[in-house]
């Protein structure tokens, strides 16, 4: 007996009871349909992320420089290296600063009056920065001006305050050339920052910002610990790879680069974690469908006892009987997979139309669904097929006709 005959027998067995077959495949249809819909909608929704992608945050790179292990060690990133980054194609602005270590902020006060009834010292973070800070952090100035390359070169003792720092120190105007005393050293305030658009550097709002040369002289803030880079749109990934080499050619791996996720991985991430619950639901439906197929096939085997006996009398071996029932349950599973995949794809298209999205359905998914259905049917048919094959022809022929 050849394969074609077996398939013919199995298909006519399935077709013999169309209503029952239709009900039996329902479980697999729901299971596969849910899986295809869930995965399809995730892929479709994930594809929409690029449209909503925040163009601004996609251009921000922050490089954190680890503190030197020994006090006399050479700095990991020398100040002159900042210009190397600025020369990279795609960098629109770069700044670097050294900051008072976390938890060791310096006392800052706006005057030298000794008033025992008031606490005038404020502990504020102090930054020694390059003059490009406003461009690289997209910070605006609410009053005065930022220091320039001349201030840095001349090691002028000037300061720019973050808006919160100015408020705490009681400074609202700068036209009278106020000074702040950082750890006892006076600096002339020449500007106050407005808003800082760069979300990951809000620390600037409370900071006292000095030219790095002046900070190095008076406060010994040490080497660079942060480099903030703004890039052209789409250049962030490339610059993130190149910046460590430009900053620290000797040990690029020692730098910690925080780059925005690229749109492709963001998309996959969304597709991956969306609707895990629905996937589980689909799998559960699939299991229920498999149990349904197993149950109905078992009932069918019992009903067709006489047929099994007849086939055995006609020379069918146990194997033939087992394969026939296995094939029947596999065909049922396959039908469920095809119908389920079609229903799932239609659902994805319908949802996409409703949301005005472009439907995205993985071809592999659509092609694999019927196979998964067939596999479910095959597994579900194992036990009934075994029962059918074990029947003795003598007993089977006496069974109900």
């Amino acid at each position, binding site marked *: 007996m050849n394969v074609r005959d077996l398939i013919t027998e199995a298909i006519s067995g399935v077709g013999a009871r169309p209503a029952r077959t239709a009900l039996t495949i329902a479980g697999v249809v729901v299971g596969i349909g849910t899986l295809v819909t869930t995965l399809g909608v995730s892929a479709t929704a994930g594809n929409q992320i690029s449209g909503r992608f925040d163009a601004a945050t996609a251009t921000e790179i922050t490089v954190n420089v680890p503190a030197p292990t020994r006090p006399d060690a050479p700095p990991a990133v020398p100040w002159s290296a900042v210009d190397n980054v600025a020369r990279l194609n795609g960098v629109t602005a770069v700044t670097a600063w050294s900051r008072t270590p976390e938890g060791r902020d310096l006392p800052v006060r706006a005057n030298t009056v000794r008033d025992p009834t008031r606490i005038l010292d404020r502990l504020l973070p102090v930054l020694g920065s390059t003059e490009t800070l406003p461009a690289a952090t997209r910070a605006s100035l609410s009053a005065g001006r930022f220091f320039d390359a001349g201030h840095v070169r001349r090691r002028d003792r000037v300061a720019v305050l973050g808006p919160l720092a100015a408020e705490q120190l009681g400074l609202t105007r700068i036209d009278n050339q106020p000074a702040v005393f950082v750890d006892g050293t006076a600096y002339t305030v020449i500007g106050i920052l407005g808003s800082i658009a760069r979300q990951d550097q809000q620390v600037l709002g409370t900071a006292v910002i000095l030219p790095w040369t002046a900070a190095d002289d008076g406060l010994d803030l040490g080497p660079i610990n942060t480099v903030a880079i703004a890039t052209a749109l789409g250049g962030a990934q490339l610059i993130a790879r190149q910046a460590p080499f430009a900053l620290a050619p000797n040990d690029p791996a020692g730098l910690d680069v925080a780059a925005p996720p690229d749109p492709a991985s963001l998309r996959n991430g969304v597709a991956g974690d969306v609707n895990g619950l629905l996937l589980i639901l689909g799998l559960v439906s699939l299991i229920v469908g498999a149990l349904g197929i197993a149950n109905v096939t078992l009932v069918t085997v019992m009903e067709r006892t006489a047929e099994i006996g*007849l086939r055995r009398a006609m020379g069918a071996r146990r194997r033939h009987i087992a394969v026939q029932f296995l094939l029947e349950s596999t065909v049922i599973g396959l039908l469920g997979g095809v119908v389920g995949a079609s229903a799932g794809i239609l659902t994805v298209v319908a949802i996409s139309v409703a949301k005005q999205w472009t439907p995205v359905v993985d071809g592999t998914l659509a092609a694999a669904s019927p196979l998964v259905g067939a596999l479910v049917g095959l597994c579900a048919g194992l036990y009934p097929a075994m029962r059918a094959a074990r029947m003795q022809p003598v007993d089977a022929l006496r069974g109900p*006709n």
Partner: protein
Amino acid sequence: MTYVLELTAVRRVFPADPPVTALAGVDLRVHRGDYLAIVGPSGSGKSTLLNVLGLLDVPNSGSYLFEGAETTTMGDRHRTGLRGSRIGFVFQSFHLLMYRSVLENVMLGGLYTGVPVAERRTRAVAALDRVGLAHRHQFLPSRLSGGERQRVAIARALVDDPALLLCDEPTGNLDSANTAAVLDLFDDLRAAGATLLVITHDATVAARADRQVRITDGRIS
């Protein structure tokens, strides 16, 4: 003279408490072209004898030669092959597949013995011609009378050109007119050289055979 089948001292005992001896030393020889009726009341061992003869059951002791080959020592697979290719079964309740057409039912004969589908179709058409149902190919069995159904079953048994046609109460579910038609068909088959073995409790059916043997309490008399 060749024997189609030859039973010598065949015993079949079913394990029970006490053990049931269904066949207690049966000797039986059937020649090629024989038309033999085995009669006996219910409980006499008829069904067990049919199962043994049809290679559906294996005796506990004794020898059963089918066309000269010892079947009691054969493997299950070999015996199944012999059953499918050399023995045609006709049952009291027809055992037709109700969801398959007459032609498809008849084509089941030879399905498991490696006959290609085109050949099975040709043979099935010829067999249906032979039983006088050439006009009923596409009918479903449910639309046929009892006699017609049994003739379909006989056609199915004939497809593989069996050495032995084994009929178990072939007229048990039929009225007298249909019984007569089936028995006439048996006569025709007999005339064409078929070997027929009919198991029945009906004396009028048995009377049509060339030879009758009676089975009582597991013994042939």
